[in-house]
């Protein structure tokens, strides 16, 4: 049990996917201008990544590994993720319209979110068993959401402030992200 908690804390704080592992930076900069968008994106990533982690892990265990097709992993995973996102979108539109109204526009963006593909690949690379995979597929996107929502809060303040001309928009956002990353680096001593 202790190991699982350690894994979860490690994935959320110490190895934060956005700020320490540099995955998923396009949506990080793209959707952090307003808190609503950031929250929507964070929820969508948590939802899809939990599913994608399970499905790709099963694909690896059932098809790729026994058949010796590991070199096909990249193609198979991207197709599985793309199909899954499409499926989730259709399913949500039909049976959960309220949720779809909130998350709908973020779903197509998730296919090309490297955080999703990245965590699926990390799960395989670290040779996690099913339980560990489940924790990592939930904890990593939770860390993504945490960083994204905190950053959106900062960015809303920056928009009001007076930023020097050349630093405006993306530039100041990256510098801010750098200092946030520095504070996350401080968690390194925890485990």
């Amino acid at each position, binding site marked *: 049990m202790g190991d699982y908690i350690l894994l979860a804390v490690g994935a959320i704080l110490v190895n934060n996917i956005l*700020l320490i592992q540099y995955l998923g930076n396009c949506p990080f900069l793209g959707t952090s201008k307003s808190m609503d968008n950031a929250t929507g994106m964070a929820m969508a990533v948590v939802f899809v990544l939990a599913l994608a982690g399970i499905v790709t892990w099963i694909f690896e265990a059932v098809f790729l590994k026994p058949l010796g097709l590991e*070199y096909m992993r990249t193609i198979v995973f*991207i197709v599985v993720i793309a199909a899954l996102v499409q499926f989730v979108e259709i399913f949500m539109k039909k049976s959960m319209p309220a949720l779809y109204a909130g998350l709908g526009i973020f779903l197509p963006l998730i296919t090309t979110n490297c955080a999703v593909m990245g965590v699926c690949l990390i799960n395989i690379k670290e040779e996690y068993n099913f339980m560990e995979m489940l924790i990592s597929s939930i904890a990593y996107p939770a860390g993504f959401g945490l960083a994204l929502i905190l950053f959106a809060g900062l960015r809303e303040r920056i928009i009001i402030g007076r930023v020097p001309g050349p630093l405006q928009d993306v530039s100041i956002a*990256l510098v801010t992200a750098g200092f946030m990353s520095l504070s996350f680096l401080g968690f390194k001593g925890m485990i």
Partner: protein
Amino acid sequence: MAKTIVQEFTKGLWEEIPPFRLVLGLCPVLAVTKTVANGVGMGVAATFVLVCSNVLVSMLRNIIPSQVRVPCFIIIIATFVVVVELVMQAVAYPLFLQLGIFIPLIVVNCIILGRAEAFASKNPPVASIADGLGIGVGFTIALGALAGIREAFGAGTISIPFSDTVIQLFGPSFEPFTFMVEAPGAFVCLGLVLAIMNLVGK
């Protein structure tokens, strides 16, 4: 409208140089620029995928129905990424280990899908090659430059791509500024380079 092939090539080197002008595909830019060798290696791999996928997308542009074009593009790109993965394992295994999961993640690099969608699906193959090559070389230069800054300050060295040579820049009393090669340095450094580009461009 009638741009020459040369113009298609050169626009990737300055006007639309990724990731500075087109803010896309930031993950590899931040992650693999710890050393110049890694940065340039990543740039070359991405350029190969970009040129090949641009050519194929361009040749198939009248065959692929527009409703399913994005999945088709992704599969084309993924195929070339697998090619790169296998080739790198064979000829540059240490680099392959260094870049790790960022090689398969070229699949989800928005620059490549972006060029396929915005350019190659509307233009003939020759122009698409020029476009892919231009953007790819621009991307490689950008990665190399950023990596150069980070490596010089963070480790006091410059590693030459595709060889084991490492040049020491400073004397023995140099204290490395480790911040630059850690994650925060990547963000701050890219942010400042973008600011300088904005200053120069205006």
